[in-house]
């Protein structure tokens, strides 16, 4: 059944060869497999404790959405915890007509909302919508006679699963959990069931949960709010324009059908990567994966993102009003992760923000100007993304002053000849971080999945280390001059209502 495209036992040899004559060897064997249906499986056995960490990466995220269904990847992630035809139910067949009825009622809600948007509001529209939603709620309650509340969690937790959760980002969605190694078959049954036949019960109440998440992370959190507005000002055409959670008006209008279609399209074995790290034996794991996942049908996955961000041509500035202390976000468009400039960005990030000797730490925190800052490349890897700084000034320091410090810090990379030691520090630091990442099961799993997904090479670290080691001071100047310019920049100030800049 399983067609082994290639079976390699990769001896991961991380080496700090530029800096040390000793070549460190790590006895970690990572194997890569491909099932007939296109499912990728990566296994990294580490038998230090009787625990396995599982990560399933679906190559779908908010970048695959469009206006009208923004945030649907995230909604789909939520719905994956609502059971299957066997899990979370005592009689699935009895649930089906109730869910159909709920969906029919919601179609009426959508019709009313369409009229509202076009300003052709029928009389009493809000009351009608409210009544329809109440009826849906009533049906969802009735459905509970046949469902078992939160069974996915209760059943798996009872046998020792933990940290069962998921997260959606711009380019991908991750599902993960820890489980004791005696639960491998239970894991295979459970994860394959929800890849094959999830049931999106409790759809409408879960949508309210997503709304609560939206309120929590966006409307009532100054940092989340600022990021959403900042991103939307920096990205105008590309689907990185909206934050992963999506726009509120899209969230309230998702239909179950839309989310099912989305799932069918993207949650296919040929669009997924399974990574198992920990107390796992390759033969046993592959046998079970083949048994449970092998018959799930692949889907035709097409590239949907053809829009590219046009050149910005001019600095953008926005002011966001929020009842919170002032803060700043400032960023630039950058290349995608598999571009040759990416390793240079990584070195620049290190020089600017890693450790107390970094440029921004010294200029912002060490100088007493700011209480907090971070620099991030976002989690946008597949397409050209962003490179941005966030900072909150100390009392008596203006945002303008912080902006000036940040500009000077960026500009220093264009003009000042950084020392050999500084460059070496960044390179060593990046390679050191690779080790730290690899020594944590969760991070190792993410790293392996990402390497395969983005770079097509589970062994990508080897190439990456070579790329990092090749970087010169001239590369840093070149990239800084190319990207860190006003015409490529957006600056967002968060101020209290009525507060002056």
């Amino acid at each position, binding site marked *: 059944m399983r067609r082994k495209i290639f079976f390699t036992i990769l001896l991961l040899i991380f080496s700090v060869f530029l800096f040390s004559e000793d070549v460190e060897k790590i006895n970690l064997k990572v194997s890569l497999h491909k099932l007939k249906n296109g499912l990728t499986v990566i296994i990294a056995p580490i038998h230090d404790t009787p625990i396995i960490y599982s990560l399933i990466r679906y190559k779908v995220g908010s970048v695959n959405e469009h206006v009208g269904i923004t945030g649907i990847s995230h909604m789909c992630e939520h719905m994956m915890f609502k059971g299957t035809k066997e899990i979370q139910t005592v009689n699935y067949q009895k649930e089906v007509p109730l869910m159909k009825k709920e969906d029919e009622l919601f179609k009426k809600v959508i019709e009313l909302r369409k009229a509202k948007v076009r300003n052709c509001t029928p009389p009493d529209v809000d009351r009608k919508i409210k009544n329809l939603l109440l009826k849906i709620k009533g049906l969802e309650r009735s459905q509970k006679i046949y469902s078992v509340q939160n069974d996915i*969690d209760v059943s798996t937790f009872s046998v020792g699963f933990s940290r069962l959760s998921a997260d959606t980002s711009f380019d991908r969605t991750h599902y993960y959990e820890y489980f004791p190694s005696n639960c491998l078959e239970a894991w295979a049954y459970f994860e394959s069931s929800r890849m094959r036949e999830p049931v999106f019960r409790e759809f409408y109440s879960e949508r309210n949960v997503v709304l609560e998440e939206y309120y929590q992370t966006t409307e009532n959190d100054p940092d989340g709010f600022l990021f959403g507005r900042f991103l939307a000002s920096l990205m105008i055409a590309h689907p990185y324009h909206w934050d992963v959670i999506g726009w509120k008006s899209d969230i309230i209008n998702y239909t179950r059908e839309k989310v099912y279609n989305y799932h069918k399209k993207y949650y296919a074995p040929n669009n997924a990567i399974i990574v198992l790290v920990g107390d796992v034996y390759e033969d046993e794991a592959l046998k079970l994966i083949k048994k449970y996942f092998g018959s799930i049908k692949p889907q035709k996955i097409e590239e949907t993102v053809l829009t590219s961000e046009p050149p910005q041509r001019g600095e953008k500035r926005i002011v966001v009003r929020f009842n919170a202390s002032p803060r700043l976000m400032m960023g630039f468009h950058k290349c995608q992760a598999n571009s040759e400039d990416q390793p240079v960005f990584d070195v620049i990030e290190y020089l600017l923000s890693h450790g*107390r000797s970094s440029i921004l730490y010294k200029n912002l925190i060490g100088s007493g100007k700011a209480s907090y800052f971070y620099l991030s490349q976002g989690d946008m890897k597949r397409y050209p993304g962003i490179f941005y700084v966030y900072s909150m000034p100390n009392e008596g320091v203006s945002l303008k002053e912080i902006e000036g410090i940040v500009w000077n810090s960026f500009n220093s990379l264009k003009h000042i000849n950084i020392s050999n030691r500084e460059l070496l520090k960044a390179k060593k630091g990046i390679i050191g971080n690779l080790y730290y990442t690899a020594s944590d099961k969760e991070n190792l799993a993410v790293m392996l999945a990402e390497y395969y997904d983005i770079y097509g090479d589970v062994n990508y670290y080897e190439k990456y280390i070579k790329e990092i080691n090749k970087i010169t001071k001239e590369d840093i100047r070149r990239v800084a001059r190319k990207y860190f310019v006003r015409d490529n920049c957006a600056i967002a100030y968060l101020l209290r209502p009525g507060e002056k800049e």
Partner: protein
Amino acid sequence: MKKNTIFLIFLLLFTYSSISKDKRYKNIFTDKESIGGKKIKKLASKELKFSFPVEGREYLKFKVKNLTIYFYPEKIFPTVRLHGYIKAGEIYDTKKQVSKLTALLLRESDTQKMKNREINDVLDFDGSQLEFIPGRDWVEIDGKYLVENEENFLKSLSYLVARPIFSEDKLKVVKKRLKGEAKRSDDVPFLLCRKLFYKIIYGNHPYGYFYTAEGIDDVGIEDVKNFYNKFYTPGRIVLAFSGDIKTGRIISALKKYLGESFLTREEHRATIPEVKMEFKPGVYICEKKHVTQAAIYFGRLIKIEKERDLYGISLFNHILGGSSFASKYTQQIRDIEGIAYRVDSKFETDNLTGALFLSRCRTKLESTYRAIADMLWIQDGFVNRRITAHEFEMGRSGLGNGFIKNFNTVDNILNLIVKNEILGRNISILKNFRKEVYNLSYEDLVEAAKRVVSPENYTYVLVGDLKEYEGRLKKFGKIYRVDEKGNMIKK
């Protein structure tokens, strides 16, 4: 006739409301089991080979004078992880906030041997990481390094811990930063709510101001020096190394760089202020305009009388709100009602005094009352035995089997062991945890719930634009208004 009709209508309404109330919660306490659930259980029935790590076999413990050092070797990656604890947390404060400032200043300080700039340069050049994290009971040392850079790391750590030179200028910078961080966290209603909850619950006890920046300006450099001299002694420090370690090498480097004068420093006796078991019942509202959600924290202090209490209350907490998506809170408030994204409970015992039981969530302003009422109703379901035998079984297995998750890395295992020791607890608590949990009965669960559930003694802290909802909130207790600093606002 008219009177009878009114009575009849009233009776019908009353009956309906009782039925609907029952209906509302009927699904939350259940014996139902799905086909899939049974399969998962069956497929996981193979016995797990697991034994608790043994000192001298899996991990080692050494004493260098009064300094305690743990080692847990694992040779997969050329990295070492350090978790350290200095018993110099907020609870030992000789002046408000002095512990926090000392810990933060320590990392920024020059030393008698190296400038701070040089230390940072060495650590960053090697790709090493080192932080001192202030806490309520201890200061945590968090570090990692590549084994080839061990000497530099241990030198930097030792110089900072044993030979700091505290300066007024750096204290100013640290104070500014702390104030800024406090402001940033006050901007988020949920974090503001947490701050106020601890402040009200613990009152003047040091635990009460941990999340605040109050009193920072009153701490001078001499206060920091005195605090450091009293509490940064080897007998109060525990270091735990895991990863690619050679014990002899680490011990000799620590001896060399900490130096004899530090390792033989005089130990001072320190007593901790006990938390008074007082209740502060009432609904404390901090009004925050322009927010669309309310942040909710409520709970009470708990007296732990015997070890067995820990297991019973842990199980109660696990089923109630401590087991994330499997908990009754999440099932009802998030998944049935759809009124919160996160809701949970916490049984806080990782402190030297004053264990705490709390519940918390964020919800739309208009569902604040409902969220609290639902949480209280669920709590009552344990006391009044609506929780089913099946749910008890599932929860007990979940807590017992889930304990394994603490063993996902050797670093976590060692940290668990060391933290247990710092809390003055016997290792048997960890060794026997699973066995003790499996021995708990349904009656133990009910008893634990009875010990904890006491809505009339709860302190409810709410942050949000809640003025128009106060009428209903009164049902939970007397309303008090507090400002963002936790001061009572008089009408």
